[in-house]
């Protein structure tokens, strides 16, 4: 990596500052805390010089009194640079830019969804443009219907080109572009229709005004200043993007991305942004329900009734089994483990997933191989994706890969004196030269277009390729023979690229459910490290706390069946987990049959919840505090945005109550989150670092808590005036240093506790500039989260063998492999109404030739038989999937569990 560059001295308004020469002047000023109005520059997108708002005066030398106007975003920072931002001429120019943009802007702020957090409003005030001198009719546009996520209002457009630069250049989207020319440029799709790219939601934040807005928010519109906000963490995949969750009237109203320089940067995916609606679902479990033997429907009960019902079953001599969950917080899982005892605690994931996750966790903890953050993934210069469908299982990794492949041209650009922030020339220079990315997956997706090579093959051949790569790197690595011819050559090429890279990266994951693929990925990482390479290994796990759960001692779900084979269970406690997604219906029902009492804690009435004798309303991420560990091993805390007025409680709080019942008050003294975290850190060494997770609940700024609401929060008394005109008592939050209030220190809370972005002059998300050390850098005070696995010195390397094998397909059979879907395969987000609209019905993906063999067409329905289970699915024909493989969409709403990969048959309908 490049060494620290020497700083240069520049003069702004006659004052001297130290600055980094590889930055542009605008970024530099913004990181110095000096505001320069701008639109088209975005730290993640670089500079293009289109809006002309960031103009400053540049002077040749001290004697130059006149100076000339330059765009600060296009101005390299050089030694001795002299500039002025306040110069009257340039100030007037900037306000002219706003004035001319306003000639066509509709001034519909009172009804505009962006009002109150509009970058254009900020800039208008900042430049001081006030009076309108343009007295002609404005241009108007037709708005498009862009699907369930994004609403479109082109009249508000100020033509900064950020949308198309984000959507196309950054995220690889193809269906949003700019049309026409002059002052008729139009940003939209070729025709009406849902935006196809998985990151479309970021347009809401990237667009400086109200052209692209959050459609799910629009339905219940509320202003930014009327929201209560909390720093949160996304619950919809294992990457752990940081989010801001915002509430109004007891409902979650939106999710925005929360900056974390090491994790998601400025962006999140659409599943993460729009999946939140499950929190508001009308079917949410909000009361304690008890299903007594002689009643048909469960009855709501109060707390005392609940206690009297559980009093007996929780007593010390009872045999209680606890099933934890990869989507519940560390604290909730720990509370359950404490309640039932280590030997009775199960992870609650499918057998295969348990196996693979365990292998991975052991490996990561003991080999010292780096697990990269997304930021580090963006720096990779040779990448192999082995068997993981990133776009669907970890979309943000695929976004990071799009940035990573641009590293190679960066060197060339530097050589030609082109600054890396100068976006267009860097792209132009790059053409097709990219850092090598190799993708070995059973079927293609949009990432293929940036890959140097793609390898379409069966799981076995993909694994073989991985083994061959490892073997090329280290002779000691194990072998997995294949008769596919091109493997040797490709493996050689990949090994060469990885070996010669500064930051080689292997990506794999468990979504394939295939041991040999995971083993192959681990072997390559081992082989690389054996030759002294600082290889990175990123492994995608299925859920937001999969890795966190894996850190707990505990049995597999399958083991739970064995555990109870001979014994009766007195009480089975299921924590935030629909077991029917983890195992075949029969086994789950069997388990239930053997349990005298079933206690379920969850948010929504899934099948498991429906089987409960006692159903407890568990708080979602938005109503609770807790910690998740992402796939990188980074523990991240989320905070409640909603103070639930119903019986809804954090699972760890419910379970804490039960612990008190079971063991008495003396043994466990948990009153709030910090207490659990402390005892967890003491009990399980892997979590010992969590003690450092500061600040705790006692933290205060200027002796007050950090407000969740902005200073402009209106109507604290008015909002419930139809119920009571009295000033309501503020809700209390004992678990965090955040308050449900607008009072307190608004500026600059600690980096992990930022509930919203606001700075004087900046109501829009651009206020973020003040929260980071430099645009695109780290949060001031460090990026949130604590890495629980730090690279240690590598110990003796060993190589894995192939592992368990999948059944081979007989005649008339296909290998059925799982296809995860970004929209639909994740349990919680699939309930969200906007996501549901983007969710496909269950389908099977097959090759055209295979379709011809069984004479079916695209769009036909067939019956798919796997392990005797039959399922009606739609056929999708895909040219990339190889013959003999059939990809089955998994975990879509209404679908049963399938233990695939396995073989299956098609029956015509």
């Amino acid at each position, binding site marked *: 990596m490049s060494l620290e560059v020497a700083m240069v001295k520049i003069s702004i308004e006659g004052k001297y500052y130290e600055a980094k020469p590889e930055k542009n002047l605008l970024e530099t000023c913004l990181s110095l805390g000096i505001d320069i109005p701008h639109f088209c520059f975005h730290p993640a997108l670089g500079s293009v010089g289109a809006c002309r708002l960031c103009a400053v005066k540049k002077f040749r030398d001290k004697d130059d009194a006149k100076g000339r106007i330059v765009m600060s975003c296009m101005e390299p920072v050089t030694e001795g640079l002299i500039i002025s931002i306040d110069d009257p001429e340039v100030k007037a120019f900037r306000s002219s830019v706003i004035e001319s943009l306003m000639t066509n802007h509709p001034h519909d702020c009172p009804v505009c969804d962006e009002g109150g957090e509009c970058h254009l409003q900020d800039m208008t005030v900042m430049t001081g443009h006030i009076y309108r001198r343009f007295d002609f009719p404005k241009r108007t546009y037709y708005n498009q219907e862009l699907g369930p996520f994004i609403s479109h209002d082109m009249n508000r457009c100020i033509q900064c080109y950020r949308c198309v630069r984000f959507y196309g250049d950054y995220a690889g989207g193809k269906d949003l572009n700019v049309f026409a020319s002059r002052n008729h440029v139009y940003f939209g799709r070729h025709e009406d229709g849902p935006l196809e790219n998985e990151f479309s939601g970021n347009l809401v934040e990237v667009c400086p005004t109200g052209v692209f807005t959050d459609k799910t928010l629009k339905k219940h519109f509320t202003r930014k200043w009327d929201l209560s906000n909390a720093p949160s963490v996304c619950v919809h995949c294992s990457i752990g993007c940081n989010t801001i969750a915002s509430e109004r009237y007891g409902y979650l109203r939106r999710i925005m991305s929360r900056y974390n320089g090491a994790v998601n940067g400025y962006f999140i995916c659409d599943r993460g942004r729009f999946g939140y609606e499950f929190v508001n679902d009308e079917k949410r479990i909000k009361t304690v329900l008890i299903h007594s033997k002689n009643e048909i429907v469960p009855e709501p009960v109060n707390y005392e009734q609940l206690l009297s019902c559980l009093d007996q079953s929780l007593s010390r001599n009872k045999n209680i089994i606890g099933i934890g969950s990869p989507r519940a917080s560390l604290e909730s899982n720990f509370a359950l483990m404490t309640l039932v005892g280590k030997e009775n605690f199960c992870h609650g994931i499918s057998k295969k997933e348990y196996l693979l996750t365990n292998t991975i966790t052991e490996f990561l903890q003991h080999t010292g191989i780096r697990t990269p953050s997304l930021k580090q993934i963006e720096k990779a210069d040779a990448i192999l994706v082995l068997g993981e469908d990133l776009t669907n299982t970890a979309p943000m990794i695929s976004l990071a890969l799009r940035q990573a492949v641009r590293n190679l041209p960066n060197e060339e650009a530097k050589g030609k004196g082109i600054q890396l922030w100068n976006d267009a020339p860097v792209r132009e220079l790059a053409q*097709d030269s990219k850092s090598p990315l190799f993708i070995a997956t059973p079927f293609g997706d949009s990432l293929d277009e940036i890959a140097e090579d793609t390898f379409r093959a069966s799981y076995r051949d993909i694994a073989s390729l991985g083994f061959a790569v490892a073997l090329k790197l280290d002779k000691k690595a194990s072998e997995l023979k294949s008769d596919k011819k091109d493997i040797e050559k490709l493996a050689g090429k990949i090994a060469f690229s990885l070996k010669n890279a500064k930051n080689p990266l292997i990506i794999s994951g468990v979504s394939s459910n295939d041991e040999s693929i995971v083993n192959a990925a681990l072997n390559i990482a081992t082989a690389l490290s054996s030759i002294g390479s600082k290889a990175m290994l990123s492994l995608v796990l299925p859920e937001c706390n999969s890795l966190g759960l894996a850190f707990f001692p505990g049995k597999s779900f399958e083991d739970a069946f064995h555990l109870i084979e001979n014994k009766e269970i007195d009480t089975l406690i299921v924590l935030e987990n629909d077991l029917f997604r983890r195992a075949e219906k029969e086994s789950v029902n069997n388990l239930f049959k053997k349990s005298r009492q079933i206690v379920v804690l969850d948010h929504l009435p899934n099948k498991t919840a429906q089987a409960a004798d006692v159903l407890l309303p568990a708080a979602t991420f938005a109503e609770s505090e807790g910690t998740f560990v992402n796939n990188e091993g980074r523990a991240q805390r989320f905070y409640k945005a909603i103070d639930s007025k119903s019986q809804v409680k954090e699972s760890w709080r419910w379970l804490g109550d039960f612990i008190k019942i079971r063991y008495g008050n003396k043994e466990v003294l948990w009153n709030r989150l910090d207490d659990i975290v402390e005892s967890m850190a003491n009990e399980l060494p892997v979590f010992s670092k969590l003690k450092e997770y500061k600040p705790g609940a006692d933290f205060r700024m200027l002796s007050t808590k950090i407000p969740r609401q902005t200073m402009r929060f209106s109507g604290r008394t008015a909002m419930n005036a139809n119920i009571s005109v009295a000033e309501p008592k503020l809700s209390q939050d004992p678990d965090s240093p955040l308050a449900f209030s607008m009072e307190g220190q608004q500026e600059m809370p600690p980096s992990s506790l930022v509930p919203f972005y606001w700075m004087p002059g900046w109501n829009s998300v651009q206020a973020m500039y003040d929260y980071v050390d430099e645009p695109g850098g780290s949060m001031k005070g460090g990026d949130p989260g604590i890495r629980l696995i730090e690279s240690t010195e590598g110990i003796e390397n060993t190589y894995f063998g192939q592992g368990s094998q999948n059944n081979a397909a007989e005649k008339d059979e296909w290998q059925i492999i799982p296809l995860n879907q970004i929209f639909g395969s994740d349990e919680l987000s699939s309930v969200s109404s906007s996501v549901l609209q983007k969710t496909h019905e269950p389908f099977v993906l097959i090759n055209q030739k295979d379709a011809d063999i069984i004479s079916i067409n695209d769009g036909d329905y067939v019956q798919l038989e796997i392990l005797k289970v039959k399922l009606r699915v739609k056929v999708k024909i895909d040219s990339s999937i190889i013959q003999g493989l059939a990809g089955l969409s998994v975990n879509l709403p209404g679908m049963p569990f399938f233990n695939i990969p396995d073989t299956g048959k098609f029956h015509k309908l």
Partner: protein
Amino acid sequence: MLTEEEKKEIQKEVKQYPYPAVACIDALKIVQQHRGWISDESVKDIAQVLRISSEEVDSVATFYSRIYRKPVGRNVILICDSVSCMIMGYESLYQYISKKLGISFGGTSSDRRFTLLPISCLGDCDNAPVMIINNDHFNRLTIEKIDELLEHYK
């Protein structure tokens, strides 16, 4: 659907360049040459041949003034409305044609015989006023000449 001929012509251009998308403008011109204009369907067809999205094709198509995204008549009259032609009286010419054909700039006659469009300077200012019909260039125009001229285009 593009015809085989159109596809062949496009492929020929594609070969000249480092990647197919470069031939976007050529492809649009080829299809327009055959069909007179570029329909939404043509946009999609071209996108398919060049392996890019419809949006990418349309973004280019709508930028250039000589790519027609609306149907035009069998003959397209382009009258230069730039400054030298203005000085030399293109306006009366336009008025005359407009009245004669019953259409103004942007319009197509009801028999689809003519579409009338303005165009900027045709680089023949010393022989103003100037106009183009289809691919034919005419200069030093007078109202008298117009009647005779239009007759040639059916």
